[in-house]
C-alpha cells in the first residue's frame, strides 16, 4: 500500500515535469487551440515538418544559434580546461583568489553583469559582433564548466601523470596519452552543457549582439509577448530537436558503450 502511494507521488512528480513539454508539442503540431478548447482541434504534422525544412527565418535562427554555441564551446574550453587543471593539481600563491573569482559571475546579479559588460563591449567596439556575443555567453557558463572539469581532474588525481613522466614521457606525451583521454567524461559534460546554455541565452544575445543575432531564443520572445504561442512553440520545438535529441543519443551510445567497455 505504501509502495503504491509512493509510485503515485513519483508519477505526479514526473507528470508535472513533462506537462510543459507536452503542451509545447501540442501547440507546435496542433492548429486552432483556442478558448474554450481543452485540446487542439486538429493535428497537422506535415505543416510543422514543412516549416522545419522550408521556413527561412527558422532555419536562419537555427544556424545562428548553433554557430554561436559552437564558438562558445571553443572559447569556454580554451579557458576552462587549463584553469581546471591548474586548480585541481597545483598549489600556488593566489589560488584562493582565483577560486573565488571563478564563482563571481554566478553571484553578481546577471542584469548588472550584463549591462556592465555591454558598456565595456561598446568601448572595445565588440558590441554587435560574433566574438562579443560569444564572450558574453562564455562568461555566464564558465564557472560551471570549470567546476565540472575540476571535479573530474580531482577524481582522477595526478598519480597517472607522475607515472607517465617517471617512465620518460615528456609533457606533451603525458598530456595527449594520459591527461586528455582520462578527462573525456568531464569534457563531454562541459561541452554538452555549454551548448545548451549558449542556445538558451536571451538577454546576453540581444544586448551585446545589438539585436543582430536572432537566435531561436531571441525570436521566441516577441512571439510570446504578442500572444502568438503557436509560432513560439514551433521555435521551442525546433530547439528541443536540436538539443535534447543529441543529448539523448550521446548519452545512450557513447557513455553506455564506455561503461560496457
Amino acid at each position, binding site marked *: 500500500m505504501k509502495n503504491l502511494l509512493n509510485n503515485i507521488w513519483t508519477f505526479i512528480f514526473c507528470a508535472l515535469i513533462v506537462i510543459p513539454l507536452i503542451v509545447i508539442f501540442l501547440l507546435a503540431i496542433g492548429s486552432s487551440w483556442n478558448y474554450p478548447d481543452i485540446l487542439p482541434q486538429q493535428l497537422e504534422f506535415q505543416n510543422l515538418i514543412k516549416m522545419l525544412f522550408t521556413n527561412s527565418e527558422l532555419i536562419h535562427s537555427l544556424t545562428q544559434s548553433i554557430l554561436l554555441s559552437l564558438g562558445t564551446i571553443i572559447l569556454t574550453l580554451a579557458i576552462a580546461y587549463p584553469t581546471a587543471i*591548474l586548480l585541481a593539481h597545483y598549489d600556488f600563491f593566489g589560488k584562493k583568489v582565483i577560486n573565488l573569482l571563478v564563482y563571481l559571475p*554566478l553571484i553578481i546579479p546577471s542584469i548588472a553583469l550584463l549591462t556592465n559588460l555591454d558598456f565595456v563591449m561598446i568601448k572595445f567596439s565588440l558590441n554587435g559582433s560574433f566574438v562579443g556575443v560569444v564572450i558574453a555567453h562564455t562568461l555566464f557558463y564558465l564557472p560551471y564548466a570549470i567546476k565540472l572539469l575540476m571535479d573530474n581532474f580531482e577524481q582522477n588525481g595526478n598519480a597517472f601523470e607522475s607515472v607517465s613522466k617517471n617512465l620518460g614521457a615528456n609533457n606533451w606525451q603525458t598530456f595527449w596519452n594520459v591527461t586528455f583521454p582520462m578527462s573525456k567524461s568531464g569534457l563531454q559534460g562541459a561541452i554538452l552543457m555549454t551548448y545548451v546554455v549558449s542556445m538558451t541565452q536571451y538577454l546576453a544575445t540581444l544586448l551585446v549582439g545589438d539585436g543582430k543575432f536572432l537566435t531561436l531564443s531571441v525570436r521566441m520572445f516577441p512571439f510570446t509577448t504578442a500572444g502568438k504561442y503557436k509560432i513560439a512553440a514551433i521555435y521551442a520545438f525546433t530547439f528541443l530537436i536540436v538539443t535534447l535529441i543529441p543529448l539523448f543519443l550521446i548519452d545512450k551510445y557513447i557513455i553506455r558503450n564506455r561503461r560496457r567497455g
Partner: protein
Amino acid sequence: MTNRKNIILLSLPFCLFFLLFFLSALFKSLITSFGYYPVLNMKKFTWEYYISALSDASFLSISWRTFLFSVVSAFLACIIGMMIAITLYRHKKDRGIVFRITELPVMLPHIFVVIALFQLLSQTGVVPNILIHLGLLQSTEQFPLLLNDNYQIGVIITYLYKEIPFVIVSLMLVLRQMNDKYEVVALNLGANKFQTFWNVTLPMIQTALVNAFIINFSFNFGSYEVPFLLGNQQKELLPVYIYNYYVQGDITQIPLVMSLNMILSVFSIVFAAVLLVISKKIPGGRIGGNR
C-alpha cells in the same frame, strides 16, 4: 622551476579573459558610478549618484520586493528539492527513467515554461477550462489571476520548475557519495526519523544545499527574462527596472544605472559570503566542504 612555468601558462587564459571582460567591466562601471564619464566630459569623482540611488524610494522598495521574492522562491526550491531528493534516494529511484526526467528542466530554457504556463494557466487557458467542464467553476473569471499578478506567482512557478530539479540533481551527487550507515547507526541508537535527519543527514548535505540556494537566489535576483514576461507592470522586479533604465537611451542616466549595478553587486556578494560563512560554522561545514 618548470612547475612555476606551468602555473603561469595554465592560468594565463583565465586571467586574461577575466581581466579583459569581467574585472574591466566591473572597474569601468565602478568609476562611472562615481561620476567619471569622459564621454560627457565628466571627470570629477562624486558620491552624488550613490546618494541619489539610496534615497530613491522606488529603487529601494523595488529592491526590497525583489530580495524577498528571490529569497522565498530560492528557499522553496531548496526545501522541496531536498525533500524530493531524499525520498527518491530512499526508495532507490535515483537512477534510471525518473532521474532522467528530473534532469530535463535543468536543460530547458525558461521561456518553454512561460509559453506552457500561458497556454495552461491564463484565465482563458486550458486548466480553468477543464475546471469548468468538471463543474468546479462557473466562469473563467473565478479562476485566480496567476500570471502577471501582484504576487509574482507565475514567475515563482517558472523558477520552481527549473530550480527544484537543479537542487535534486546537485543533492543527489552528494547523497550517492554519502555513507548511509551513519543514518542506520543513528536509528539504531534510538534517534527518531526527524532526529536522524536533523543531526545526521542534514549536516552532510547542508553545504551542497547552501551552494544551490546561493545560485538560485542570485539567478532570481538578477535575471530579466521571466519577470519581463510573467511579472506585473505595477509591481516591477529589479531586473526589469534596471534594464528599462539602461536601454531608455538617456546617456546622462548611465552613471546612476552603474551605481545601482554596483550597489546590487556588492549586496549580492556580501549576502553570498554571509551564507557561506554560516554554512562553514554550523555542523557539517567542514566535512562536506569538498562539494
